């Protein structure tokens, strides 16, 4: 069944004030052919609730966005059971469902809700999940993402990443009056919050491994400075404002160090490691070419990075120990850059250029080192893995604007997150 360009899931259903930020809307541009059919029955809602929340709608939108599920249109449901006891499985089987989710949103007290839900295998009638999650009104959206996470994990055996966040740079306005914002939103693009705003460029947001802080580059002083900002408090402190380049921060897996790119007086960019507690600086690369875009290996013992030491940019790996020498990893094509390692360490996502067009590609790190081009947008850059490794978020351009897009790690599902305004770039998916 061809769903290409057919399915538009509008998720921007929260009411926000008219503040100037870019709301993202998800558009599935190419779904998976063998998406799993599932019936997500509208949840029973308390009649006396002030603003009942549509849990089933959000779970359905999450699962649709993953590209791996094909939720049944609720208009085609001939009945709407809310507990497993009331499900007539043969009816739902006849409507071609493999799974079904039923549940209730219960009002427990003032601003206190309970989401009760059950997941069934329609074929075997087996009850796969039976849970309840308590939340206040403001927490219902997050709780519903958690329901989607549990369904996703139960059926696919992969941890869901719907209840996570994304950071990105939003550029509003036009030359010469551009405004740059560092934004954190829910993984579905809803609830954007401005972390930092400046009239000068902001770049390269990177999540700390505990998800509490972001490192980024700000040109607010007309010179690059790397900051670390704690999201909850908004407190930030400069980590590097050395003479020359201060760029491309990358957290070590233990969160204690940052890899970063600095330059010597003659402009040679190299990769260094700074200890966040002591400010002690260690130089990692020494080549006269451009060495940048470092990313830690999951064991914290090496760095993947971009270097044009052999002419054009290619991806290398180097141990962080003294005297360690780099190994080149990419050989196909003249431009391979900005590596990001998958959460399980089995592959790298990076940017490759073919005939002047930039695409997201992956490199197999465990097997024979095969690479696969996943996207064909032409301006596809800044790949960032979902914390479960199932999807890669990246930046591209559409209708002359910077937008975000998603591709499944196998390349089969493609989606675009259309922004309501401005340019959106440099997405970074949070850890769990």
């Amino acid at each position: 069944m061809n769903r290409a360009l057919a399915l538009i899931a509008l998720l921007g259903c929260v009411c926000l004030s008219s503040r100037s930020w870019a709301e993202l809307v998800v558009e599935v541009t190419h779904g998976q052919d063998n998406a799993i059919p599932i019936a997500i029955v509208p949840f029973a809602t308390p009649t006396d609730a002030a603003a009942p929340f549509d849990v089933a709608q959000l779970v359905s939108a999450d699962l649709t966005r993953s590209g791996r599920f094909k939720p049944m249109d609720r208009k085609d449901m001939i009945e709407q059971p809310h507990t497993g006891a009331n499900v007539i499985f043969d009816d739902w089987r006849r409507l071609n469902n493999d799974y079904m989710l039923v549940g209730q949103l219960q009002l427990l007290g003032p601003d206190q809700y309970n989401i009760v839900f059950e997941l069934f295998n329609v074929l075997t009638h087996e009850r796969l999940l039976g849970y309840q999650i308590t939340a206040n009104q403001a927490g219902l959206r997050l709780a519903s993402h958690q329901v989607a996470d549990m369904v996703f994990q139960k059926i696919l055996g992969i941890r869901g990443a719907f209840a996570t966040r994304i950071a990105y740079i939003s550029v509003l306005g036009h030359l010469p009056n551009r405004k740059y914002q560092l934004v954190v939103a829910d993984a579905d693009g809803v609830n954007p919050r401005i972390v930092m705003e400046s009239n000068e460029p902001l770049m390269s947001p990177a999540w700390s491994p505990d998800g509490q802080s972001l490192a980024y580059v700000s040109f607010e002083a007309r010179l690059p400075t790397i900051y670390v900002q704690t999201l909850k408090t908004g407190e930030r402190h400069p980590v590097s404002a050395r003479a020359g380049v201060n760029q491309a921060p990358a957290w070590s897996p233990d969160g204690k160090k940052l890899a970063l790119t600095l330059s010597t007086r003659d402009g040679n960019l190299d990769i260094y490691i700074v200890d966040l507690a002591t400010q002690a600086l260690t130089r990692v690369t020494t080549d006269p070419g451009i060495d940048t875009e470092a990313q830690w290996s999951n064991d914290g013992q090496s760095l993947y990075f971009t270097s044009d030491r052999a002419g054009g940019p290619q991806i290398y790996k180097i141990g962080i120990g003294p005297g360690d020498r780099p190994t080149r990893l990419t050989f196909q094509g003249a431009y391979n850059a900005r590596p990001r390692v998958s959460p399980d360490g089995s592959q790298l996502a990076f940017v490759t250029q073919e005939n002047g067009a930039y695409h997201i590609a992956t490199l197999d790190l465990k097997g024979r080192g095969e690479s696969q081009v996943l996207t064909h947008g032409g301006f596809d850059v800044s790949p960032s893995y979902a914390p479960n490794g199932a999807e890669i978020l990246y930046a591209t351009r559409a209708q002359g604007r910077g937008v975000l897009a998603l591709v499944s790690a196998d390349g089969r599902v493609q989606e675009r997150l259309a922004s309501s305004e401005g340019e959106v770039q440099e997405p970074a998916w949070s850890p769990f």
Partner: protein
Amino acid sequence: MSMKRIMAIACLMAGAALFSGCAKKATTVEPPTAGTQVSGTASTAGAGGASTSGSAYGAGASGSGDYNGGANGVGTVIYFDFDKSDIKTEYQDIVSATARNLTSHPNLKLRLEGNTDERGTREYNIGLGERRAQAVKRALMLEGVAESQLTTVSFGAERPAKEGDDESAWAQNRRVSLVYLP
């Protein structure tokens, strides 16, 4: 701002005006900087062992909010070919005129702002922009300019001169802007 400082800036402005008359081509309008927030100066200085070039700039910019030393946003620009950082012969006159101006006014400070077009990865583009700025710096030093008069910064693809997804925009963005500092 002290009287001495005001005089110094006036001299710089005169120098810049004099110089802009020398450049025959490739003079374009820099993105106006009115309204630019020069915040973060204090925190820049606060970084352990950090450079102080940021605070020097911030101090000078406080007067008019115009970081370009009173030249009213007009600067000189050298353009580059795609993925290249060598200075094309057509810009040699600009390099020579700039070098003459700097050597005859040793108190002048010039900032070389390297930029790229939007294609490619953002951080690698920072590297390319820096390489272009360094190419101009080397060319000026070869003509006798003291290194102490020159600073570089790379904005990569982050501060385009022209928006657009075609070569006409890209060609205007692959540039080094020569900016006299107050």
